[in-house]
Structure formats: C-alpha cells, structure tokens
C-alpha cells in the first residue's frame, strides 16, 4: 500500500516554462536538488582541474619541454590541487550525502533546508572566486595572477613580502568561503541523522553510508576550523601587519605546517570515507549478500575518524621534529591502517560466496578495492619516518596520494554515479559506454600512476616544471603522460554517456538494482516530499523485508 501511494507522485514543476524551471533551481531548498547542484558543480570543476592536470602532464611528457612557462606551471599545480580538493572532492561527496542521507533514513528533507541552500551558494561563489583569480589576481600591484603557492600554501612564502599582488588572498578567501559552506552541511547532516530518522530506524539500523556520513560530518566540524583559523591568521599577517608566520619577528613557519596538516590529514579521511560509504552500499547489492560485519564496519569507521585526528605530522617528518614526535606520528599512522584493513576484509567477506553481478558500479568498486589497498600499502611505507626522509617531495608521494584520490575516491565516485543516476533521473546510464569508460579509465590510471612510483624512487622531485634528459626519467614520464590522455578520453566517454542517457536511457523504474535501502522504495526521481507516508523500519534492509515477507531480516538481527 505504502509503495503504491508513493509511486503515483506527480511532478508539477514540468509544466513551467524554462525560465521558471531555472528559477526553481535557484530558490530551491530541496535536499535532492541542492545535492544534484553540488555534484554537477563538482563535475564541472573536475573537468577544468583535470584539463589543468593534462596540461602539466603534457609539459612533463618530454625532458626540457617548453609548453608552459615555469610560473604558469606553478599556478597550474596550485590550482589543480586546490580545486580538486575543495571544488571537486568536497562538493561531490557532500552532494551525495545531501541527496542520499534523508532518503536513506526515511526523512523528507535535511534538518535545516535553508541552511543547506545557504551552504551551497557560499560554496559556489567561493569556488568561482578561486578561478576568478586568473583575472583579478593582479590587484593594484600589477603583480601575480592565480595562486602559485601550492595547495598547502607554506609560510613564509605566502607572506606579503614574498607573495605580492592578490593571488594568495584569492586562495585564502575562496577556501574560507567554501569551508564555511561545508561546515553548514556538516551541522545539517549531524542534526538530520540524530533527529530526523523515521520510525524504527535506531542508530544500529542505519545504512553504513549514513554512519559514514555522520563520521565525515564530525570530522568536518573538527578539522575544517583549524584551516579557517590559520587562514584568518595569514590574512591578519598580510593586511594588519601581524607576525604569526613572520619569521623575522620570531614567528614560526612550522606552526603553519602544523595548523595546515591538523586540517589536511583529516581532510584525506573526509574525502575517502564517503568512498568507503559508497562501497559499503554497492558491493552488497551486487554480491546479493548482506554486508559482512555491520557492527565492526561501523566501529572501524568511528575508529578511523578518531585516529585520523592524531596522525597529521607524518606530513612533516622532513622538517626536523624531535625523535619522540617522529616516533609518535609514525606509530599512529600504522595504527590508522588497522581499522582500514578491517574494512577491506569486510568488503572481501561480503563478496566471498556472493552471486556477483558485474555491472558498471561493481566494476568500479572492484577497481577501488584493489587500488585502495595498494595506496594503503604505499601509505604505510611513507609512514616509516626514515623511508619518508628518503622519498619526501618526490613523485613517489605524488603517485601514492593519487592512488588514494583517483584509484580510491574517483573510482568510487564513478561507481556511485552509475549506481544512483537511475534514482536521480529515472533513466539508466548506458552499460556499454559505461564499460568502455571503466576499462579506459582503469588502463589510463595505471599507465599514469604506476610508473610515477618508480620515477619517485629514481629521485624525481615533485613540483618541478621540467627535468633533464639522461636520468632514466624519460620513458616513465612519457608513459604517465599518455595515461593522462587516456584518462581524459575515458572521462569524455562518461560525459557522452551522461548526456546520451539523460535523453535516451532505458527507463529505470523505482528499484532497478533490486536493492534494499529506503531510497529505492520511492519513485525515480523521488517527489519533492520523498515519501508520501513516513516509512517504518524494522531491520537494516527495509526493502528486503517488504519484498520477502516470508523471510524478513528482522528475525536475524
């Protein structure tokens, strides 16, 4: 009964003229529309920052190349890094949480819909401000353009004396704005999961994704303020003559590094935990099994959240901390590997003995599993302080964190898009194009980042705009650059797939994957109010209970 009522939802927006419909998107406070705008905005900047990466790879394809000038390269590198973290990773992941959390817990919206809209527009204009720096960065001095201080903007290079013009100010202000937007989302997600769950959904019955959203929201609340605070200090230095990071007045450049990485390392987990969340929803559905070790999975997520707050200085082994400091942060880095390993075993346990369906979301998830494990292992290597002294600031580090960010996170973002696209649009993405996308992206990814590990072991430093011939780096770099082009091609196929499927995709229906969580119980796309009648839940797989009244899950939980 409940289902039938929900399925006859009407879309009264369709009747409006185009301007009216666009206006609806601007004034909306609906979590689904805001979620989609976050994801769409993130994908837009993904293309821009991705093309900047391809430009860098083309410059590095051959030794002594002169495609771009060194100054331009520094800007490309800074903008690529900053944009991929704050303008791509953050919005896409918070966009998914925005869209999915209320649907999965049987709520009609987030706890504070207007705050949510406020956060989105802050993010969007902050993001535009970052790229506006290419035009406005000159400022009154006629010096500078886009920021060129690296995504972590180490002091004292960012002080007024060394960074003229307004480029660093653009970096500070745009990231400050997007951080406030993310904080708004985080408050919203915490309040939603604690206060808006439908009847029967105890904390222990929430989908793993919602648990991870909660952990990520807490991490955002605790980890983003250190960055904002440090940026506020930097602004005071630059404009009021304060001395926080001014080494000539006794200020400390190392303090900036501490503050930045107190934010920076939890940020890695803010980005990767959503990837875990997608995997924890997709892998069970395509293995036709309940997730293995739900409670352990949740506990491991919380443990990662806590431990990740105490590992930051493993980014700073090379600055000369005390032996006790090095030992502590090396040990805590090893420790965070334990709950992460538990998660990998849980996903393997879910797959083990399952009836696997190799659809595109599952393919991307399997790629994620393998690549994320490799990324974790090279992370453990870098966590050993003496090993890090040898390889710090080389391409080994670049290869390691791109294995995490692309091999782990981007793969799971693609998996999530293929999995939830039918829910958001009512149409399936094309499977054939999807497989082309997957295989090309997989090949391109490994072509780029496998050789870069070896370039790093050979001693190639990062953040250089070119290198000399005859040092054993030519072949590795050429391979990496070819891989970058292959990846770009794969993303192009993905874009074609999205546009094609929006118009011509197969009708999805409410539940195309035969899945078990609440978002699949309403229409695709869901009506503005999500559920006509508030659902009641008795187990962690409410839709299974509905489909199998003779063998419901709540008997076993």
């Amino acid at each position, binding site marked *: 009964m409940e289902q039938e009522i929900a399925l006859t939802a009407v879309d009264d927006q369709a009747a409006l003229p185009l301007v009216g419909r666009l206006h609806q998107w601007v004034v909306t406070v609906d979590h689904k529309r805001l979620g989609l705008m976050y994801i769409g905005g993130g994908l837009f900047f993904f293309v821009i920052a991705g093309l900047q990466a391809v430009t860098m790879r083309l410059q590095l394809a051959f030794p002594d190349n002169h495609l771009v000038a060194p100054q331009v390269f520094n800007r490309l590198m800074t903008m690529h890094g900053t944009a991929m973290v704050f303008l791509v990773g953050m919005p896409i992941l918070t966009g998914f949480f925005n869209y999915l959390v209320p649907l999965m817990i049987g709520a009609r919206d987030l*706890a504070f819909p207007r705050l949510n809209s406020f956060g989105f527009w802050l993010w969007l204009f902050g993001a535009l401000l970052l790229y506006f720096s290419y035009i406005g960065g000159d400022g009154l001095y006629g010096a500078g353009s886009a920021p060129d201080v690296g995504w972590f903007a180490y002091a004292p290079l960012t002080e007024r004396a060394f960074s003229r013009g307004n480029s660093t100010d653009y970096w500070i202000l745009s990231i400050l704005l997007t951080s406030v937007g993310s904080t708004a989302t985080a408050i919203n997600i915490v309040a939603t999961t*604690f206060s808006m769950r439908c009847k029967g959904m105890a904390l222990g019955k929430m989908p793993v994704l919602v648990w991870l959203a909660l952990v990520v929201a807490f991490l955002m609340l605790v980890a983003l303020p250190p960055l904002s605070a440090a940026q506020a200090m930097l602004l005071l230095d630059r404009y009021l003559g304060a001395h926080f990071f001014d080494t000539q007045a006794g200020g400390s450049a190392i303090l900036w590094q501490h503050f930045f990485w107190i934010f920076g390392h939890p940020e890695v987990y803010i980005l990767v935990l959503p990837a875990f969340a997608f995997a924890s929803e997709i892998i069970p559905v395509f293995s036709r099994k309940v997730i293995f070790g739900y409670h352990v999975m949740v506990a491991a997520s919380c443990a990662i959240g806590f431990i990740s707050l105490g590992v930051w200085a493993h980014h700073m082994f090379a600055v000369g901390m005390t032996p006790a400091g090095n030992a502590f942060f090396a040990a805590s880095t090893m420790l965070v590997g334990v709950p992460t390993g538990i998660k990998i075993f849980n996903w393997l346990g879910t797959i083990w003995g399952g009836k696997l369906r190799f659809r595109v979301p599952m393919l991307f998830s399997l790629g994620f599993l393998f690549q994320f494990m490799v990324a974790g292992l090279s992370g453990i290597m870098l966590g050993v302080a003496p090993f890090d002294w040898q390889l710090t600031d080389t391409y080994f580090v670049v290869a390691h964190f791109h294995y995490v960010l692309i091999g782990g996170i981007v793969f799971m973002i693609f998996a999530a898009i293929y999995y939830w696209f039918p829910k958001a649009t009512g149409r399936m993405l094309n499977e054939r194009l999807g497989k082309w996308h997957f295989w090309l992206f997989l090949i391109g990814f490994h072509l780029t980042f496998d050789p870069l590990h070896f370039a790093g072991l050979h001693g190639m430093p990062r953040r250089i705009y070119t290198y000399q011939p005859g040092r054993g780096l030519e072949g590795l770099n050429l391979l990496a650059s070819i891989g970058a082009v292959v990846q770009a091609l794969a993303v192009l196929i993905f874009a074609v797939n999205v546009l094609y499927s929006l118009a011509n995709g197969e009708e999805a229906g409410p539940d195309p994957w035969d899945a078990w969580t609440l978002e699949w119980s309403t229409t695709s796309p869901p009506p503005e109010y999500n559920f006509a009648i508030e659902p009641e839940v008795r187990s962690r797989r409410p839709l299974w209970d509905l489909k199998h009244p*003779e063998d419901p899950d709540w008997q076993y939980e």
Partner: protein
Amino acid sequence: MASAAATPIPAPAVEEWTLPSRGRVGVLALILTESAFFSIFVAAYVFYIGKSLSPPYPRDVLSPPIVNTVCLLSSSVSIVFAVRALRMGHTRVFGMWWLVTLALGLEFLAGTALEWHRLIYREHFTIATNLFGTTYYSLVGLHALHVTVGLVMILIVMVLTAGGHVTRRDAEHTELLSWYWHFVDAVWVVVFTTVYVIGR
C-alpha cells in the same frame, strides 16, 4: 517478490519513537566546530608565550579585567533565570532577566573597548608591535567578536519581547541562544586563564 505459497511472518510493532530536537543537536554541533576554531587561536597564543623579540611584554601592560569577568560570568546566570521564567510563561520576568543579561554583556564589551583604547593610544601597543600583540589582539578580538554576535541576537530577542512577540512557545529558541551564550562565557574562562594568568 514472495511466492504466493510462502506465509508472511507478521511484523512486530515499532516501539515508541522519540528523537532529540534538531535545534539542540544543531547548536551543539555549532559549538563543537567553534571550539575547534578557538582552540587553534589558543594554541597559537600558548605557543608564542615568551617568544616576542621586542617589548612590551604582557606583564608591562596587562592587568586582569576582574570586573569584566564577573559581569560576563554573571550574565550566564541571569540568562538561565530568564529562560526558566519564560518556560513557566512569566514573560515580564523573562524580559527583566533578559535585559540584565544584555546590560552585563554590554558592560563586558565596553570594558574590552576601554582596555584596547588604553593599550593602543597610551601604550602604543598594536597587533603589529610584536608576537604578543599579534596573538593578544587576535585571541581577545575573536572572543569579543563572538560576544558582539551574541549581543546582537540577544538585542533582537529583547526588541521582540518589548513588542510582545515572545511567548512560552519560544522557550526552546531562547534556550538555544543561551547555550551559545554559555559557550562564549566558557571560552572567556579559557581566554582569561591563558592571557591573564598563564601568559602573564
């Protein structure tokens, strides 16, 4: 779907269902994130204690603002009385205690302003003077900014109360505002200890 032959198992009823108010959870989350923000400024202050390369040093120019502190901490008590009165429906009593809170908060802000005026114009001590000035003005200023924001919100409620728009129904909203105010007071305890006790 289930085959026709299978017998459905009757589902147990879902028990009584109450969840915390979203406003309370939201304000607690805001307080958590604000605490993280303040802790970085406190960390910077502590890190730079005694590292200034030039005078003046804290002992030369700072004296503990005892009256200010007493006023601000008392305002935390008066706001509790106000909220309690509103919950019982005594709007007039609420208005009186709310006014007391506003006055105590304003006294604190005025006290800080006088202290800064003395430091800047008589001691010629600014944010650019040395590391002590840098950390002192940013930490105390950040707190004063939060006091100002709190006072603006308290003032809005005061105006609404004078217009007769605040009733028993708004008890939770005023309580949430009081939580923020308690947080601002608690931060002052930390700032006071750091700046005027440990740092001096």
